[in-house]
């Protein structure tokens, strides 16, 4: 499989990809605590962005409620760990199961009854909001006062319980991001990947070519939800606290999709490039503001808005297609060039 993966990357891209991977693997050696935190955040957004991209970028189903799957994953694994001492490596299966089930319910309701486009997006928001309000009142999971994991002793890394230093989290997150990338790459070259693109481009034509569009849209939603929930598991064990008002909030759903939108919806590198650009720039901005002593609440959101506006106006396909063309790596068009 590795051979097949490499054979697809244009020759000129190989050294670049290798250098990027090497830099990411070596980063904790050079990076200080703060930079490492930012890198973890970048990888987190790259990972969940990639998962969201399966639904929107590949299958064309817009979800504005992906915080639901992050939150369900986070709460499921955290609850199993705190209440029953179950390792997150087992908990993550429960997390995926719960999120996949939620995705399946939303998908079934929408696709069976022909809820599409904007109305589908609204449905995804509604379910995230249900969850936010529901978890606010669920005492067993701390309710609105929050749910806390015992804070780790940073002297020792316990990979089995995901208790340890940021460096450990960094490598786990890096592994997940790389795995998500490879999974998406393989999917895009497979039957299901082709079918998703067909459904995205024209559901009617897809159906006329023998594609069971209900089934393949369901596959996209369930897979995307399950993958997203793993991001939630990491989120819970890294931050050690969960508040429904934050985890399930619509702003989290929006934040999660900005990376792939700015990087390039439907491309494999888009979510990664977008996460780097957005997080790195917004953190730099925050540091710069702090350095000159200005404290404006909400400046990050304004900054996101400006970025989005600039990309929509000047690079409507996202940064990656333009960047890859500039690097001579091919057109990088939606779906097409990433294959």
């Amino acid at each position, binding site marked *: 499989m590795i051979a097949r993966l490499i054979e697809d990357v244009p020759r000129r891209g190989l050294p670049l990809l290798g250098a990027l991977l090497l830099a990411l693997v070596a980063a904790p050696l050079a990076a200080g605590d703060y930079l490492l935190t930012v890198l973890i955040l970048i990888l987190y957004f790259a990972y969940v962005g990639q998962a969201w991209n399966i639904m929107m970028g590949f299958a064309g189903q817009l979800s504005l409620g992906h915080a639901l799957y992050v939150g369900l994953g986070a709460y499921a694994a955290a609850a199993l760990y705190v209440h029953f001492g179950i390792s997150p490596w087992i908990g993550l299966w429960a997390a995926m199961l719960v999120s996949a089930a939620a995705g399946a319910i939303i998908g079934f309701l929408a696709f069976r009854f022909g809820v599409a486009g904007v109305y589908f997006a609204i449905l995804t928001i509604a379910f995230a909001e249900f969850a936010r309000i529901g978890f606010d009142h669920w005492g067993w999971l701390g309710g609105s006062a929050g749910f806390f994991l015992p804070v780790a002793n940073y002297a020792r890394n316990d990979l089995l319980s995901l208790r340890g230093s940021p460096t450990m989290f960094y490598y786990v997150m890096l592994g997940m991001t790389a795995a998500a990338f490879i999974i998406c790459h393989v999917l895009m*070259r*497979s*039957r299901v990947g*082709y*079918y998703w*693109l*067909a459904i*995205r*481009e*024209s559901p*009617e*034509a*897809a*159906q*006329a*070519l*023998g*594609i*069971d*569009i209900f089934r393949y849209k369901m596959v996209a939603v369930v897979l995307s939800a399950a993958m997203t929930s793993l991001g939630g598991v990491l989120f819970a064990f890294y931050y050690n606290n969960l508040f429904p008002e934050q985890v399930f909030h619509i702003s989290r759903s929006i934040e999660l999709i900005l990376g792939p939108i700015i990087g390039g919806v439907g491309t494999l590198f888009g979510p990664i490039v977008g996460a780097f650009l957005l997080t790195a720039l917004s953190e730099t901005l925050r540091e710069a503001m702090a350095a000159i002593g200005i404290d404006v609440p909400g400046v990050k959101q304004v900054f996101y808005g400006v970025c989005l506006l600039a990309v929509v106006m000047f690079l409507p396909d996202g940064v990656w297609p333009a960047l890859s063309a500039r690097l001579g790596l091919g057109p990088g*068009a*939606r*779906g*097409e060039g990433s*294959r």
Partner: protein
Amino acid sequence: MTALLEVDGISRSFSGLRAVQDVSFSVAQGQIAALIGPNGAGKTTCFNVIAGVHRPDAGQVRFSGQRIDGWRPDRICRAGIGRTFQLVKPFAGLSVLDNVVIGALNACPGVRAAREKAGEILEQLGLAAKSRQAAASLTLPDRKRLEVARALATGPRLLLLDEVMAGLRPTETDHMVALLRELNARLGLTILLIEHVMRAVMALSAHVVVLHHGQVIAAGPPHEVTHNPAVLECYLGAEAV
């Protein structure tokens, strides 16, 4: 000859408008048949009923002796009926090749085989040189060809072609006619076409069904039908004689 497709008394209304009313005809195995008639006669509605886009209000559609009315379009495609759209629906953001690969996946076990088959079909339709272009960049005649390529790639036993000659130049029409003839002769592919280009209808079809106001007004061999007074009056016009 046994009938591959039997349309038996189908009717379909759209909010009170009877688009198709008690229409019956059949297409024999290995035959090329044409469905003609003026605009609004119900030809495309007939196609959509056969292809599963619309469920008939009454009547039956049988394919290979099996009832298929009420099936979903994807199931009908998998059963062996490929169709094109009059208003072409290419996967605009994908390459020409990928458009056809998606169709070929219906008939092939894997992506590799589908890519090979798609390549062959693009060659046959004269689109091979454009296989890496985005489908959105094609001209209308090329998009019509792409529709045919994609439908053909699904490996159908019956091909429904909805006005694929419209907009083609006479030489291109002749090329398409030759291709369809060859497919019919070589693979035994049964074809039902909706067509306004009489040059193609006369050259291709062994059987012509004429629709007017949602009803069959004539059916038979092309030279008979084109001399039928009712057909002349409503569709071809007196000067066609």
